[in-house]
């Protein structure tokens, strides 16, 4: 089980101390689909980055099966089985989609196997496997490739930072299917940061983070009704319109 204990992150900006994460304690039980939601700027993405090791907390602990991993590097945490899908996927000049998937899988995958992961995220593998991960790919394409790398890793904990951000409605429909399928087939914990009602609907439990604190958490059926109609859970159409 992944846990965070009294986790805090403060930064100094314009000679002012700001607490981005305030004393958060949470458990992420194994093999669960957990959605983290809440208003923008509330600290959700920061929490995800703290879990992946991209940011370092100013206080508190991150535990994996009781082992304190707070001081471990991004690489070490990745090797322990934590994957992280970026909200804004990174572009690489020269690296091809198949290179990234092979790196993610940690072995010399056959092209056929690499294609499986692309197909799983709704990309026609033949068209993409040799593409460079550069500016020629659209935001939606990059996002799906990002998710494919996490699938290829197949680790016990996968963290997705707003997978819906920056993709069009058409892609979004497919994305929901991808997560539904992942929920059915992948063993392991899925932590997904999202504002989307349709993603929250498939979660086992929901955590609401606002102002750097956990303001609510519990099973989906207990939390979701309270969120509907708020910023935390907008219909896809509403978000596009707003």
């Amino acid at each position, binding site marked *: 089980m992944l846990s965070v204990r009294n986790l805090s992150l403060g930064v100094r900006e314009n000679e002012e101390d700001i607490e981005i994460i305030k004393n958060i304690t949470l458990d992420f039980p194994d093999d669960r689909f957990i959605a983290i939601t809440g208003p923008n700027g509330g600290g959700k993405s920061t929490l995800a980055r703290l879990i992946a090791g991209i940011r370092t907390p100013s206080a508190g602990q991150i535990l994996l099966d009781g082992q304190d991993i707070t001081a471990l590097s*991004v*690489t070490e945490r990745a090797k322990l089985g934590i994957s992280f899908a970026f909200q804004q996927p*990174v572009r*690489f000049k020269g*690296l091809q989609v198949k*290179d990234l998937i092979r790196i*993610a899988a940690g072995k010399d995958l056959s092209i056929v196997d690499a294609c499986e992961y692309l197909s799983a995220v709704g990309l026609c593998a033949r068209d993409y496997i040799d593409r460079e991960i550069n500016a020629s790919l659209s935001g939606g394409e990059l996002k799906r490739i990002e998710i494919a790398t996490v699938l290829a*890793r197949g680790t016990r904990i996968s963290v997705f930072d707003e997978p819906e951000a920056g993709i069009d409605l058409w892609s979004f429909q497919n994305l929901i299917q991808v997560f539904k399928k992942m929920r059915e087939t992948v063993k392991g914990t899925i932590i997904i940061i999202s504002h989307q009602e349709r993603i929250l609907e498939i979660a086992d439990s929901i955590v609401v983070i606002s102002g750097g604190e956990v303001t609510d958490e519990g099973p989906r059926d207990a939390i979701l009704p309270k969120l509907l109609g708020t910023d935390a859970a907008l219909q896809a159409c509403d978000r596009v319109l707003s």
Partner: protein
Amino acid sequence: MDIIEKRIIEEIADLHEVPEGAYNFRINSATDSRRSTANIEIRTKEDKPGIDIIIKPGTKHESVHIPVVISETGLKEVVYNDFYIGEDSDVVIVAGCGIYNCGNQDAQHDGVHRFFVEKNARVKYVEKHYGSGTEDATGKRIMNPRTEVYMKEDTSMEMEMVQIKGVDSTFRSTLAELSAGAELTVHERLMTHEDQDAESEYTVELNGDGSSANVVSRSVARGTSHQKFISKLHGNAKCAGHSECDSIIMDGARIEAIPEITATSTDAALIHEAAIGKIAGEQITKLMTLGLTEQEAKEQIVNGFLK
């Protein structure tokens, strides 16, 4: 040919055995072996060191390999190779030079290549540079290639210039003159490390209507190495020219990119792009989240960039 020379040949020409088609292996300033074919004749020059490579008109899908190896410390040579590429031919030419220097004197190969590309001919030219030697060797490995390309009407030339490792000092100068409908593509890939020095200068004269040139350089400078890239595109007709220099700078290296475009015709369309930057931190982070160490991540990014 000894084991070291064979290994160098593998490195610069991807050759593990005697190639098909015509070839000329030059090792330590002497011809090691040569084969001409019915359509491709290789002749020793009479007035200066070097060879003439004469490709008959209409020769299709044939190749010429002309690797050069220097494995003697202190050896310096200037070699003149002229390629006469007949009308309507379609050929692959693989050159390349490898220097193995395990002594304390400099070894140097200056190759002057001239290409006379006749009407409607297509050429793919690959040139790889490679250097190695023993750790304690103080002699430098130096290569200064000069390439001239004269392209007649409706010709096409694709040049791949690669220098990834082990060359201490290089000054590359390339000149191309394009007639109407001629198309030139250059892909240069360069990596320098330690205190190496590499300079590359391209001058492309777009003289004919419908001619086009695309000169793309990707380079990585590490250690305290220095690189200078100069591209000059001169649009003298209704033509299209594009040059791009994209560099990753690391450690204490220094890179200069000097693009120059000059138009003497209102119908010339010329573009240059140049960018120098370090590896983006988020690229490293992304690969670390996939389980690579920081060092492995940098290697992957550099390898991909130079692929």
